């Protein structure tokens, strides 16, 4: 079979299906469907695809799991920070305020207990402990 014969054959292809088609009925059916079904935007149509719904559900699950994990991690990280908060408070004092604080502390009971910042707040520290802490903060 040569090319022109092949083209002739191709032109006959689908001829019966085309003849059988009731064009007027098809035209009316199309118009009716256009009238009845609301026009859906491209975005909405994308979201209506099952694949997109699966992707969206996966993303929501991942975001939820990540939020929960981050919440737990933050709580664990912030819990032992009491002593650090006290030290951070000292950082905000001026030199004059620090000197006055030292004077006040000097008047208090002189007790040489080992420094244990993990379980101590500023109010609980003894004079030597505070002095040591101040020295370390002043460098």
């Amino acid at each position, binding site marked *: *079979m040569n090319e022109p014969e092949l083209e002739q054959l191709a032109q006959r292809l689908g001829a019966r299906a085309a003849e059988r088609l009731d064009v007027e009925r098809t035209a009316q059916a*199309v*118009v009716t469907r256009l*009238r009845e079904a609301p026009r859906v935007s491209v975005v909405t149509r994308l979201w209506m695809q099952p694949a997109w719904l699966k992707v969206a559900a996966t993303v929501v699950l991942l975001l939820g799991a990540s939020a929960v994990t981050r919440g737990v991690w933050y709580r664990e990280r912030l819990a032992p920070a009491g002593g650090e908060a006290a030290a951070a408070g000292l950082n905000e004092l001026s030199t004059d305020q620090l000197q006055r604080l030292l004077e006040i502390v000097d008047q208090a009971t002189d007790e040489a207990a080992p420094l244990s910042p993990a379980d101590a707040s500023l109010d609980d520290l003894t004079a030597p402990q505070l002095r040591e802490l101040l020295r370390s903060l002043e460098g």
Partner: protein
Amino acid sequence: MPHAEPVAAVPTDAALIAAWQGGDEQAAAQLVRRHARALARFLAGAGAPDADVDDLVQETFIRAFRGVDRFRGQCRFRTWLLTIGGNVLKDAVRRARRAKVVPLADELRATDGDPHERAVAGEAEGRLREGLGRLSRMQREVFLLRAQQGLEYDEIAAALGTSPGAARVHYHHAVKRLKEHLA
């Protein structure tokens, strides 16, 4: 001396599209009347089962009218419509494959359930359908747009988003493979 009846101007596709965009349903109906048979031939040639051609034609027009804002006259409306028909057919085949496990080539070859009609249509036509079912989608559509619909390569290339040279190559590959199949 008899007066010649004034011939009513036939509205162009572009005018009908504009009218449809303006809300004229009859303009849409007229576009369906104008292009439905060519679309049916294309779909049947591309492997649509005869029983489904009517539904596929309707679905193609619905998609085309809803997405007509994307048609910018890069090719003729009919050519654009045929490429949408190709997408509609591809989706239908995919849905059918999901519903029952049938190889794509077999699905496309199963074009008519009536053996008598198939016999009437002729063996060569049936074998051509078989051969088309074995081509890639691009080769099949380029072949049908060129051989069945008589389009130029420029027009085919614009509709299928390829170059005229590539369309020509696809056509020649399709012809070569179809000749081998029909030999």
